């Protein structure tokens, strides 16, 4: 069994006034020129599962210009059960979410039904961008693998902001009063976040490397991808190590007036053939590595839940040469549900159900 989205309806969502899409159990290719609404459809599918966009942090751009709200409806299927999910997205104010016609108390409960994985051109940032992009990827992995651990991420973030504000606003001599209390909160939540990220990176590393090997053509071309978590704090007892590091850096922190120890300074080391991917990988290798991180995440979700999650690939082939395109398509041939958006018919893999999109509408199969 595979987890999947069986159908989705988008009303006033981005450039779609009203689109319905039925999705098969295998590969669906959404084809259309740039700007016609392919990516928006993939985004709608992802939103229905995750209750957030994979591309933008705010919901405002999701609502079609001139509309009061966007509506998404669809059916999710996982572990043999189905759920009808309905979302009203408002440009400002709280969204309304219903599952099987009843309002949901916790968003997290919806997000754990189907854990779709979205991969798109923006993922190049993870490989080629600043460490912040890699930390966001790790946190996303933590949330998708273990939705209940989301609280760890938000608690750490709040503890960090509280402590930074205390350091910044302190105008007396020596150590700000109450700093030790925030040290304790920072270390407790920071240790939990470090452990979660470490576990997530560990789950992703091997399948991502395997996907990259398949993409590069196997052992004849010795191109390997290594994924290694580089935490700011490490040790057997993370919380104790964290407090010890804070103690060591106290002087610097008081001068620079900001927190210098913790998961907000973590990185994820990515290397292609032993060289740091950020500086040394070619554009093609970097896009390939980014795609493989997402595929690695999808495999980790499959391992965790025992069924493959839907993968949504937005324009996955443009950075790749024809041989690599073919190998990506081959390696995903037996995955569960897979929806890819491609700009032209030539890129549609064999055996795909084809959906054509023009001007925010599906124009026939």
């Amino acid at each position, binding site marked *: 069994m595979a987890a999947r989205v069986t159908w989705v309806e988008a009303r006033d969502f981005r450039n779609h006034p009203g689109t319905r899409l039925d999705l098969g159990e295998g590969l669906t290719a959404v084809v259309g020129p740039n700007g016609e609404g392919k990516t928006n459809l993939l985004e709608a599918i992802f939103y229905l599962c995750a209750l957030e966009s994979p591309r933008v942090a705010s919901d405002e751009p999701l609502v079609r210009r001139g509309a009061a709200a966007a509506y998404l409806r669809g059916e999710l299927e996982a572990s043999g059960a189905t759920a009808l999910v309905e979302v009203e997205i408002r440009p400002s104010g709280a969204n309304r979410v219903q599952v099987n016609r009843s309002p949901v108390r*916790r968003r*997290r409960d919806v997000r754990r039904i189907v854990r779709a994985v979205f991969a798109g051109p923006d993922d190049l940032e993870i490989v080629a961008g600043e460490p912040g992009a890699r930390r966001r990827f790790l946190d996303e992995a933590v949330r998708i693998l*273990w939705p*209940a*651990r989301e*609280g*760890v991420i938000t*608690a750490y973030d*709040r*503890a960090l*902001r*509280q*402590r930074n*504000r*205390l350091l910044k*606003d302190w105008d007396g001599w020596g150590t700000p*009063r*109450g700093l*030790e*209390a*925030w040290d*304790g*909160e920072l270390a407790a939540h920071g240790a939990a976040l470090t452990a979660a990220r470490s576990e997530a990176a560990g789950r992703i590393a091997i399948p991502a490397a395997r996907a990259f090997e398949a993409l590069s053509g196997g052992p004849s071309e010795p191109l390997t991808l290594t994924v290694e978590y580089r935490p700011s704090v490490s040790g057997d007892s993370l919380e104790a190590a964290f407090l010890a590091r804070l103690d060591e850096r106290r002087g610097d922190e008081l001068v620079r007036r900001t927190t210098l120890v913790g998961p907000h300074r973590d990185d994820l080391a990515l290397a292609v053939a032993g060289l740091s991917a950020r500086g040394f990988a070619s554009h093609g290798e970097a896009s390939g590595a980014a795609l493989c991180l997402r595929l690695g995440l999808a495999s980790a979700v499959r391992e965790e839940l025992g069924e493959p999650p839907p993968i949504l690939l937005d324009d996955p082939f443009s950075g790749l040469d024809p041989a690599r395109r073919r190998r990506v398509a081959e390696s995903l041939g037996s995955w569960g549900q897979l929806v890819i958006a491609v700009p032209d018919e030539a890129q549609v893999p064999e055996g795909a159900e084809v959906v054509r999109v023009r001007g925010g509408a599906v124009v026939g199969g």
Partner: protein
Amino acid sequence: MFEGPIQDLIDELSRLPGIGPKSAQRLAFHLVKVPADEARRLAGAIVAAKEKVRFCRECFAVSEGDLCRVCRDPGRDPSVICVVEESKDQAAVEKAGVVKGRYHVLGGAISPLEGIGPDDLRVQELLDRVARDGVAEVILATNPNLEGNATAMYVAGLLKPLRVRVTRLASGLPVGGDLEYADEVTLGQALEGRREM
């Protein structure tokens, strides 16, 4: 934006906790529509509360007199102090009827993001009470969130040299709830705080 008194009313209302600009606007327009005596009654209630309600000089809970009901009660154990953030928390703990001692209302929790530091809370007053009254146990019943925990940790640090027993409320599962619906953090804490049977 509106002009004159209506905008003043909106501005004042939006300064209240939990009231955003939209709600303030709705309340303001409601208030100008109600009969004059109803508006006067509300205004009077606010002024009367401000003038008559006082804070207990011992524990700083909302009180009608100089001392609150709990601090006046000779049956209460003076060697135990239960520390809470607000008067409403005191009322909640009191309802449980488990604390036989007295209370101390801090007046909030430490939160640098909101500009609330230790000096804005009645921490020194607590230390004075503990030293003066020979208190044996301080129960820290601040909220089980980030700010409440940090406040508890801060206060505990200051109480340590006074050689008093300091305890913190346990976190765990709500009575009458289902394990299945408990979130992972709460469940984890409940497991950490498990008891021998």
